[in-house]
């Protein structure tokens, strides 16, 4: 066993932030080395440097004992490093084969030699147990299969050092097992595998060694058999982790939201996107919707908000809202924290006070009739910033200048400012630093006590269990289970999400 790759004292600055400060890492061949840290700790930046997509300001990289200097990803690829990205980097409209050979096309007299490429890919796939049809368009593939294409991409280029960036984030437990099996196979062949994750139990399951990164620096390097998940978590944060939890029963008599047989038919002919969803939500109650991404949660949110047509009926505070437009539903008192804040909730190049208006352009205090009341809007923005600890100089700051956590806090504050009776919160703490996460949980907790009904959709199992009064599991568009969060462990919830339980 030798050291496959080593990073020494890597430092990287971006305008306004030090992403990596004196980071060091040592990975041996034939091992799985995990890199853990909370969101924004600097893990992705380190890996981008190792992969050649960024250049370090100072420090060294050694591959197989030799110092290297990567100017582009091509250099890293040539050195045998391959990155399997978290957000798949695939061209939907290309075939699997085209995606794999892009940038390293085998040639035959000026044209691409598809035949030999296909042969090599099929051989590799069989060798590592990564079955795939090379001539299928990627857009027709499921998540687990797309990941296989990503892995084949790096293997095709002769990678011996593989970096996996949050590989299990979008996988069902069965697919996670398949992946770990493939990792075993790769490790047995002497590859060095780097595994970035924040899912600490998985990390401990598959990794030999773990390096913890916090606020840009490495704080620990341990053997996985020597630590528990809890200890790792505390190393990541440096202090006690906030726990999502709700105390006591605050559920009231009134039913705020009622869905009966809500369905969204499919356009492509396979299964319905939403199939006969029915549930009642009381005031002062949080209902958690669990499920692997892509099983109808997004469509559920859109149906409730009026962004998508559906059959069946939805009632808000006793009256049907099926005929109401998106704007009307906002006005009635339904708030939304959307899944993707930059795409769905903010105008990035506009100041915060203009963003305050978004979603509220028909109500006070922002509006006086049909005219914008600028002074009231700015004041309201300032209030939100104070109450919700949004760190920015003032209401004139452009939204793009804020960090993810502060953007999210602002959005939460904005929705709370009109005291909605119903709040639909879709992944409210995704990509948000731990401090902001705790703050948002506090806000939701207090709102629940005051009688707000909350629909909480999340991929964070601890968040779901901790914050919900009831849990619904969605699979393939229907509700397949209802669980009591007080009696459910994350493992049980995970199994239910895949239909195993």
């Amino acid at each position, binding site marked *: 066993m030798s050291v496959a790759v080593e990073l020494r004292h890597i430092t990287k600055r971006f*305008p*306004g*932030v030090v992403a990596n400060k004196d980071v060091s890492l040592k990975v041996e061949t034939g091992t799985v080395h995990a890199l853990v840290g909370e969101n924004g700790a600097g893990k992705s930046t380190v890996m981008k440097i190792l992969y050649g997509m960024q250049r370090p300001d100072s420090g060294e990289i050694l591959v197989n004992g030799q110092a290297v200097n990567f100017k582009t990803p091509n250099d890293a690829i040539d050195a045998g490093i391959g990155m399997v990205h978290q957000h798949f980097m695939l061209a939907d409209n290309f075939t699997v084969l085209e995606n794999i050979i892009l940038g390293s096309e085998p040639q035959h007299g000026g044209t691409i030699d598809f035949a030999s490429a296909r042969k090599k890919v099929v051989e590799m796939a069989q060798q590592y147990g990564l079955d795939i049809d090379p001539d299928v368009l990627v857009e027709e593939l499921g998540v687990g299969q797309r990941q296989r294409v990503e892995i084949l991409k790096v293997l095709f280029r002769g990678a011996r050092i593989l970096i996996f960036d949050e590989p299990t984030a979008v996988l069902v437990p069965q697919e996670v097992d398949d992946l770990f099996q493939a990792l075993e196979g790769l490790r047995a062949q002497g590859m060095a595998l780097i595994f970035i994750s924040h899912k600490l139990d998985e990390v401990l399951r598959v990794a030999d060694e773990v390096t913890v990164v916090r606020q840009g620096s490495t704080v620990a390097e341990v053997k996985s058999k020597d630590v528990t998940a809890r200890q790792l978590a505390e190393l990541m944060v440096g202090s006690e982790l906030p726990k999502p939890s709700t105390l006591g029963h605050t559920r009231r008599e009134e039913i705020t939201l009622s869905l009966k047989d809500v369905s969204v038919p499919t356009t492509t002919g396979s299964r319905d996107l939403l199939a006969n969803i029915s549930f009642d939500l009381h005031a002062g109650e949080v209902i958690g919707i669990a499920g692997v991404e892509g099983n109808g949660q997004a469509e559920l949110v859109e149906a409730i908000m009026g962004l998508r047509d559906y059959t069946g009926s939805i009632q808000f505070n006793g009256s049907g809202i099926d005929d109401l437009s998106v704007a*009307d539903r*906002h006005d009635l008192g339904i708030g939304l924290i959307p899944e993707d804040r930059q*795409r769905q909730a903010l105008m990035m190049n506009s100041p915060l006070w203009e963003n305050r208006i978004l*979603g509220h*352009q028909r109500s006070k205090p922002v509006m006086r009739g*049909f005219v914008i009341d600028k002074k009231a809007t700015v004041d309201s923005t300032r209030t939100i910033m104070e109450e919700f600890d949004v760190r920015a*100089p003032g209401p004139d700051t452009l939204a793009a200048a804020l960090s993810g956590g502060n953007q999210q806090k602002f959005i939460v504050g904005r929705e709370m400012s009109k005291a909605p009776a119903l709040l639909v919160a879709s992944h409210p703490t995704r990509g948000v630093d731990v401090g902001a996460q705790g703050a948002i949980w506090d806000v939701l907790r207090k709102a629940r006590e005051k009688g707000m009904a909350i629909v909480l959709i999340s991929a964070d199992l601890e968040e779901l269990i901790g914050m919900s009064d009831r849990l619904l599991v969605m699979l393939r568009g229907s509700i397949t289970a209802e669980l009591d969060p007080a009696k459910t462990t994350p493992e049980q919830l995970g199994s239910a999400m895949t239909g195993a339980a």
Partner: protein
Amino acid sequence: MSNVLTRKLSPSKIGLAIAAPLAAAIFSIAISSVAVIVSKKSPLEAFKTMWEYGTEVGSLMEIVNTATPYYIAAIAIAVTFRAGLFNIGVEGQLRLGALFSCYIGAMFVLPPVLHVAAVFIVAMTFGGLWAAIAAYLKVKRGVNEVISTIMLNSLAGGLSAYLLSKHFALIEEGSNNLQTKQLPASAQIPDLMPLLRKIGVEDQPGGGVYGMFFVAVALGFIFWFVVNRTRFGFELRASGLNPIAARVSGVNSKKMTFIALVISGAIAGLSGLPEVLGQTHSYNLGFRAGIGFSAIAVALLGRNSAGGMAVSALLFGFLEVSSRSLELIDIAPETYVIMQGSILLSSVVAYEVVRRFKLTLQSNELAKVVQG
């Protein structure tokens, strides 16, 4: 402290605001000078001649007259640009607006103000209707409005030529020019000479400033107010800045697209009127072409803001009028086309560069604030 982020006016903020137009101006002066040198003349002499001619009273009035339709048309375009759409069909919309308003406006007589208002309404209706075709195609069939409005431009040209020659024109004895019946006096807008004389301006041989100048100014105010201060304007801008977020916030994007394009067409219909109502009093074959395209440049240069477009319209007018004097020193007057073109190009690039620079600056400032 972080003046880039908070305070409204400060040296660095003003500096950034000027940076782009200044860079654009320098670049285009350079290119234009090259063009002049190519025709073996001195750039300095060229600019001097233009300036002297352009600042004469008569020229100034003509500049305002040239700028007025540009400004109105630019406002029409800016309405769509702000919404993330591109109404390139202003040329066709204004042509039809002018044609129909002259033809229909000459059919009856109303008291003066009412008659002018009627003419306005006709122009806006036909401009809006023509734009509605493109709007419908976009909303119902997903047709790219850039191509459809451009095609509609050509169609408007053919349609207006056909209507003028076969139906709308009065046959004049011994004249090759086809034109609609003269608009009665009640439909004509008097020029502003009476007002100007009061402040000591003398009469000029070329005529006075079109009365529609005031209409243009009023439109500018209305545009600024609606876009920046009303709910509709907010939703319009949101649709342009982030259509997905706008939709999530309750904006009906199809309705917004349709309304924005139709309003744009209606305003465009007005932009053919200044000359028609102020001078020629009828639509004929000599109707000025190209206003719609220059207006696109004016809108881009003015960054779709009421004030910016006013300055650009005047600038374009200045270049067009003053460059006529170049003929006297034997330079092709068409040089103004080079000037307009290079300003357009360089400003479009400069705005983008400054925007990116500002964003980087902001991130740096913010980090200092948060950490410090």
